[in-house]
């Protein structure tokens, strides 16, 4: 007789697949999983391919994926959900951390992560697999702020066309008034002093 079989329903997406990272720093990606069937199954993650020198940490490296359908509200703040034909699914996040050494060569690097759902049992076990690719661009510096460049365009002066030049000196009327007032006061004081 056919033994009891367990359905496996795996939904996957990620919060971004490309990141710029400084040398000596760590890039973070998040894999999001959901299960549309009312049965749990194990999921494990394998680092399939990484460039030499990069360190990749997957957290958690394996988990049991429970039924993800949201049946009760309120939902959890900060969580990522998927609006599917089967209803609203609450995703389970898995972090992928890519640590870049200080002396790592600048450039773009791909990291491949295998997701394997199901477990090895007796007989012909069936596993379900998916491979995700993440790309990190290793950079040497990150601009702190945007610089606005002001381009000053000067009109060229055509000397040949200058046939005459009028120069005018600008005076501040208020300054003239104050100066004259001081002169008048000094003059009056001087006259008073002379008359005494």
């Amino acid at each position, binding site marked *: 007789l056919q033994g009891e079989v*367990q359905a496996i329903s795996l939904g*996957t997406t990620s919060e971004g697949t490309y990141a710029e990272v400084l040398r000596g720093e760590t890039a973070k990606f998040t894999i999001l999983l959901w299960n549309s069937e009312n049965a749990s199954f194990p999921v494990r993650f394998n680092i399939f391919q990484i460039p030499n020198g990069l360190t990749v940490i997957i957290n958690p490296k394996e988990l049991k994926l429970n039924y993800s359908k949201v049946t009760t509200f309120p939902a959890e703040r900060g969580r990522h959900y*998927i609006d599917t034909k089967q209803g609203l699914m609450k995703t389970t996040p898995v972090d992928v951390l890519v640590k870049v050494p200080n002396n790592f060569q600048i450039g773009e690097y791909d990291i491949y992560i295998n997701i394997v759902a199901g477990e090895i049992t007796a007989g012909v076990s069936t*596993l379900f697999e*998916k491979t995700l690719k993440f790309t990190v661009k290793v950079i040497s510096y990150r601009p702190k702020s945007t610089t606005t460049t002001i381009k000053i365009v000067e009109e060229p002066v055509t000397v040949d066309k200058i046939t005459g030049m009028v120069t005018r000196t600008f005076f501040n009327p208020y300054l003239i008034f104050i100066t004259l007032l001081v002169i008048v006061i000094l003059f009056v004081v001087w006259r008073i002093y002379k008359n005494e």
Partner: protein
Amino acid sequence: MDVDSDGWAEKCLSGTWGDGASPRYSLNNSNVTSICSGDAVLIYANWTDDVALNYSWLSTNETGQWKNYTANYGSPIDINLTSGQTWSNFTWKNSSVTGGTTVAWRIYANDSSGNENVTGDMTFTLQSSWLEVNLVYPPGGTTTDIDQNSTFTVNASVYCRGCDCGNVNGTIRYNASSSNPDTAINTTTGDKPFFVQESSALAMKQCPTNPLSENEFCNISWTINATGNYINSWLIGILFNSSQTDVTQNHTGNATKRIVECLDSVSFAWNSIDFSTLVPSTNYNKALGNDNQLYNITNLGTCTLTVWIKGTDLQNTSLQYPNTIAVGNLSWSNTTNVSMSSYNMTKNYVILNSSFTPNVLNITTYYWLSVPAVWAGRYNGTMTICTNTSQQSGIVDNCV
């Protein structure tokens, strides 16, 4: 009558000079100190006088200035002690005074001799109404993925608190030009990144239970089509407003909608294949689930997938050689339960279905095992099925 030496009558003197005292008040109060706009307040005081009370009138400060009322709130009233009336009762009611206002009041009274007195200042407050709002679906503070060009429901609720809230409406908005929702979602079909997909599409909807009384609530829903580019995220929220100017508008929390090209979700109806007990040197023994079409793969998502298959040798390492059933003895078909049209399993991935579209209900697969001359025992192996799509970034183009 007693007449003194000056000829003045004592009674006459006492009658003329005896009511020099002003009316005296007590028990001045109002029946409530906090009301809703449009509600009435009973304001009262009890008066006594040595001789005869005359009139009483109400004075209030509603807008920053004291005002005596002579033709409002039942003011003034004739209170005549001789007829037994000592209470001055006024009913204050003014719908134009909005919530949040504190109204001060005092009551004046005079007597028949023209003496006047006034109570101390007292106040009552008009409560403000407010809207208690909640984004029910998608839940506020969460991120939800949605397929491009597919619809989703937005549902929000509003409670009227404090006092009555008048007619309340809700407007669905998204963050078109700032970090928070600031623009009503368009109702024109095809507008990006969202449009209201309803027969009589409205971004602003009235509460069906309008006007909302205190503690009454309403629920408003919209059906929205996500037409925006993928992969873009937008904030969505609902702004609730009231027809009453003293009811402050309120915005729900926001939910993030991430528009994706497709959703990648696959369901497999089995986790192991059982061939039961087989006899060595027999071919194409069918799996127990073949006849029941058990080995179904369902595309629950919206991406078009490529499905791959591979396997391993079946082994029992505790047995002596020959203890291995090579992978090629396992065969599969994606079309029929007839072994003649099956393919031998390989250790490397081969394509099982190159275009598994979401509208296809499912793929039914079938398996057979040929058993070579091996020792009797339990043989274990693994079959792996891989799916990928070119429609979603990050998922590789092939399975390796």
